[in-house]
């Protein structure tokens, strides 16, 4: 008991609170992109963070905490999508993508173009199967390495690599994103 008091006194709980508040936005958006539903995302993030809070004594250190959290989060997302709320009307509860945070400060035209791109990517993500969508989101939104993704989804790194390849191929060939792909290629060349 004295150890717990000492830990509280040392401010580890406050540090955990800060980490939770800092990570919430990114985690929520990751879950929203995986689940495609705000209710699922909110519940999944809530489950993941409550789990982190509950087992905070055994949480990994700073470097390993993010992958651990994403692993728990992905499991929670799977759980929400597959088991706990199988009959939720996900089409009705689509993710609200009209965030004021989404508007970049490059003017109204860039903002509109940004919103169209976001909508096209969100639509393309939804059309991807779950097995391809999850690694893609974890890799390019959450910034996890292939090895960390493999740990998060409990698959071999080779499997993650092939799934990422397939996901990229499908996303790049999405008709709504073809223009953006060409534009991007033109900009780089």
């Amino acid at each position: 008991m004295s150890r717990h008091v000492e830990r509280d006194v040392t401010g580890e709980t406050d540090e955990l609170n800060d980490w939770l508040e800092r990570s919430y936005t990114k985690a929520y958006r990751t879950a929203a992109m995986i689940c495609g539903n705000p209710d699922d995302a909110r519940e999944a993030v809530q489950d993941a963070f409550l789990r982190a809070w509950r087992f905070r004594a055994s949480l990994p250190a700073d470097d390993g905490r993010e992958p651990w959290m994403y692993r728990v989060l992905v499991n929670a997302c799977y759980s929400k999508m597959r088991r706990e709320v199988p009959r939720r009307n996900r089409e009705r509860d689509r993710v609200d993508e009209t965030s004021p945070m989404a508007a970049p400060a490059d003017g109204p035209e860039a903002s509109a173009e940004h919103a169209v791109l976001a909508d096209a990517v969100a639509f393309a993500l939804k059309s991807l199967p779950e097995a391809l969508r999850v690694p893609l989101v974890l890799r390019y939104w959450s910034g996890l390495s292939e090895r960390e993704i493999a740990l998060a989804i409990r698959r071999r790194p080779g499997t993650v690599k092939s799934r990422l390849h397939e996901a990229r191929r499908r996303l790049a060939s999405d008709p709504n994103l073809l223009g953006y792909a060409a534009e991007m290629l033109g900009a780089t060349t």
Partner: protein
Amino acid sequence: MSDERTTDNSRFESWLGAAGAAIAVPDDGAATILELAHERIGNVDGASSSTIGSRATFDRAKRWQVVAACAAVLTLMGGTLAALTGQTSKSAVRAERVPPGAQFGYSRGRVADAGSSVVGATRNQSLSIKTSATNGFSVEQRSAHGTTGADSPKLEKNGSIDVQLVRGSLTAQYRMVRTIATANGGYLADGKTDEAGDTPSASATIRVPVERFDAAVDAIAHIGALRGNKVVNRTSSSRDVTASYADLHARLQAATSERDQVSLVLTKAQTIGDILAVRDRLNSVQTEVDQLQGQINVLDDQTSYAAVAVSLHEQPAPLPKPVGPAKLPKPATGLVKAWDDARHGFSHSVEWFVARSGKALVILGALLAMLFLARYLYPVVRRGLL
């Protein structure tokens, strides 16, 4: 190549970044989680927080769901157990339902030949099923016999049973048939035994009240299920004679009425010729009345007592072994013995599986139901414990 990959990565990062940044985040999300964490789990740290803390702050609102889930699972398990035990007890009751008169032979068979007691019990199960299946019919018979009204069905029943006995048991089983007849309120109408020759045999016709017909036939058939005996043939027939009975009654009533009228006419006849003519007519009518009454009596008797023709014959004596040089049985080699064992084991396994498939289906159904409950109730419990 590496440039292309870098381009790819930056392209997808920008795309996913655009899509992710466009998602609206709840303002109070983190605060809600922190509040929930403090409320549910508290500040108890470490491993104890996952047990003591969560138990202490268990969501009371969800408790009823957990209790309901446990109650549902327990009810299901209890129901399954009750169904299984009910099945067992029913079959036990069926096995114990031995027809009157056969109880003695049944118990004696079990004591005398423990090896065949299982077979006896098994056959007895099917036997008692037949008895219970015909009970409804017997009840109808009883009511018909009791009322004897013109609109009550009058059924005439007959049956025959042919039993092959083990050698040396003819006399005892013949006595048993007679005992069965008297035990069921009937009598031995006809009987003949022939104990000479290689195949001693006996035939008997017993008559029992129709409502005891099925019980008596079952009891005799039960003899055939004991100690190596075998029921070779068993028949029973039933005939509805209600129409004939009603017709005879109507004709008897008409004839009686005519007889009374002719008698009245006879008292008023004046001349010798008239008297003779009326007397002739009276005689013929009286004869008709007597015939009809006799037919009715016969029908009454046939519908009150059913006849069961019983044929008992012992198995023929085994043929004498041909005289010749003594031939020693060929000893089974290890391989032959192993093959026989495997064959018997396989057939026993198949029999066992078929015999228990019914119960296995019940258990499988219960397991599936429990799996279904666990599949949908576990998340509720899990969320409640979180």
